[in-house]
């Protein structure tokens, strides 16, 4: 599943494409369920889910070709998995263990995957928006055929990065597009309190960009809109795509949403669940049968559980990672700091062989 490539398989039949989209959405759903359980069990520190946003995330990334980049805004880890990030990387990141490609330095839910052009994300909302524009400028200048899809949440539209990013993109005419997943909430701040604009898509006009708003729970509509934005980006016309959806869970495992939002609103969106809607559509079109979803879910769950098992057995984190990667080389002052630290750690029995001192 992780190896299924994206959009750019025009050769897929309609049924194959539909089944692949469903499967990728289910992967996010099952991953989120499992991660939340692990968090509750104290195995991972924190979990932020994308439940309800699967069509927005999968549908929008479906338009990307392997060489395109996805600049994540927060919850797009499932798109990275769809584009080829191994489940092992995803789950190791959640465990922040020694198998994690970021060496356990970031908190949970901060994915990266160089192999599928999914750059490392800081937690700082909105900063990546401008990075994506700069990278798109680089692609244009270097004559590389790449599109940069730049993601953010509704909250990110208030950041300095959103303004600078859209403004620069408009002036520079670079191969990128912006995907804003309006899930109704930025933690406890509802979209009504985030902007006075009727739609976040209205903001595009101020930067001279085309702006579109689409039902983010309708994966078919999201795929079509993203393809349009992707095609524009290929012509160096940036655009803003707003996907209207809803964050079904709390902001994260640390958040209690009942304190600030009406359960009736959640219940109304529950009826519009993007996976249920798509499944229904595929059943009606006879592209899947009744057993399809349960079978797919079981297969996905088995893969995830096997990987969880594997990650539980990760070796201890090397202490040297404390001072590595700050610079290309570990500078003298950091070697010294580490060496005096490890001397104490060794004395106290906290170090393992291999943790030893740096040469000075």
């Amino acid at each position: 599943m992780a190896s299924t490539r994206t959009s750019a398989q025009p050769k897929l039949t309609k049924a194959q494409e539909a089944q692949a989209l469903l499967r990728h959405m289910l992967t996010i759903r099952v991953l989120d369920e499992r991660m939340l359980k692990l968090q509750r069990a104290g195995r991972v520190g924190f979990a932020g889910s994308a439940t309800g946003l699967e069509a927005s995330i999968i549908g929008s990334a479906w338009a990307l070709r392997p060489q395109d980049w996805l600049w994540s805004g927060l919850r797009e880890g499932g798109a990275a998995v769809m584009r080829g990030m191994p489940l092992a990387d995803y789950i190791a990141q959640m465990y922040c263990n020694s198998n994690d490609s970021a060496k356990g330095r970031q908190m949970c839910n901060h994915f990266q995957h160089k192999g599928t052009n999914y750059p490392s994300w800081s937690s700082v909302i909105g900063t990546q928006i401008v990075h994506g524009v700069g990278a798109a400028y680089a692609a244009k200048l270097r004559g590389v055929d790449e599109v940069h899809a730049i993601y953010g949440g509704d909250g990110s539209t208030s950041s300095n990065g959103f303004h600078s990013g859209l403004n620069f993109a408009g002036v520079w005419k670079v191969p990128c597009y912006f995907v804003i997943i309006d899930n109704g909430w930025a933690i406890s701040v509802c979209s009504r309190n985030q902007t006075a604009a009727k739609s976040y898509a209205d903001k595009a006009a101020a930067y001279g960009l085309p702006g579109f708003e689409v039902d983010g729970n309708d994966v078919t509509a999201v795929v079509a809109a993203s393809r349009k934005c992707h095609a524009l980006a290929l012509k160096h016309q940036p655009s803003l795509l707003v996907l209207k959806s809803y964050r079904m869970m709390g902001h994260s495992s640390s958040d209690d949403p009942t304190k600030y939002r009406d359960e009736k609103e959640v219940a109304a969106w529950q009826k519009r669940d993007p996976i249920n809607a798509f499944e229904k559509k595929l059943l009606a079109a006879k592209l899947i049968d009744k057993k399809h979803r349960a079978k797919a879910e079981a297969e996905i769950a088995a893969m995830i559980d096997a990987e969880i098992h594997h990650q539980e057995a990760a070796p201890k984190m090397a202490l040297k990672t404390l001072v590595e990667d700050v610079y290309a080389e570990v500078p003298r002052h950091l070697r010294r700091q580490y060496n005096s630290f490890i001397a104490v750690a060794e004395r106290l029995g906290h170090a393992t062989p291999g943790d030893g001192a740096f040469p000075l």
Partner: protein
Amino acid sequence: MATLTLIQAVNDALKTAMRTDPNVLVFGEDVGPKGGVFLATDGLTKEFGEKRCFDTPLSEDGIVGAAIGMATNGLKPIAEIQFQDFIFPAFDQIVSEAAKLRYRSGGQYTCPLVIRTPYGGGIRGGLYHSQSGEAYFCHTPGLKVVIPSTPYDAKGLLLASIDDPDPVLFLEPKALYRSVKGEVPEGRYTVDLSTLRTAREGTGVTVFCYGAMVPVCLRAAEQAAAKGIECHVVDLRTLLPLDEEGVIDAAKRTGRVVVVHEAPRFCGFGGEISAILAENCIEWMEAPIVRVTGFDTPFPNTLEHHYMPDDRRVLDAVEHVWNY
């Protein structure tokens, strides 16, 4: 007197200030109905209405910039930045504007505002939910920088910060939010800014610390006492403007000094303490001044317990200067 956690004391201070002065208002991300991600502002919107405690759009630059405008026009804004790690979009507003307004206007315009923000590690927050950025702000003339370590001080210092005629950055040690409890008087009282607190008396080694490092140093002091070394532990409480005389006096008491902070070492606050002592009382020093700090690296996640100074590292330094 009630026994409160540090976060409850912050909440109590905010309510006390808002009850006594209708011009005091609180705003930031998620401070309204949710009551803040750590619940520092719990119940404020309910009691004071959404004109006086409200959520803003997601822009720290907007939050602090608007607070400056309010402060110039008769209000007493208390802005919350959700994590100190996210204050940097507002750095310009704090450093270029709030801190310099009085000076550049010849005292015609002033900026009496408070920016509250949780700082520091220990919650498995990784690079961007753990930093201790006090040194950036202590390099900013015109700003005051305050860090409590007890519930009593949290309330008293916050009320004093709200009373202060100048901009105050109030850094709250999030690791202590719920892990320390203490007696807190009801109603209004203040703790003077720019005063030190002696957290433990001793004549052997002086340990300077603040915020979340205070309980760490007290634990180390206890272990040192068992080995016959009496530590004099000083909680700095206000980093800027610092009570320099108090620092010098405390250092002279023992002639042996350890400075502890979780922020990186290079150009950290420990360097300032060392320099003040070197300039003013080097002849009193019986041993080199030793710093125990975070590494000069970004803040890690999985290995954060190794990054942050703990009682053993502090004890190690105390023994070193004692035996020197």
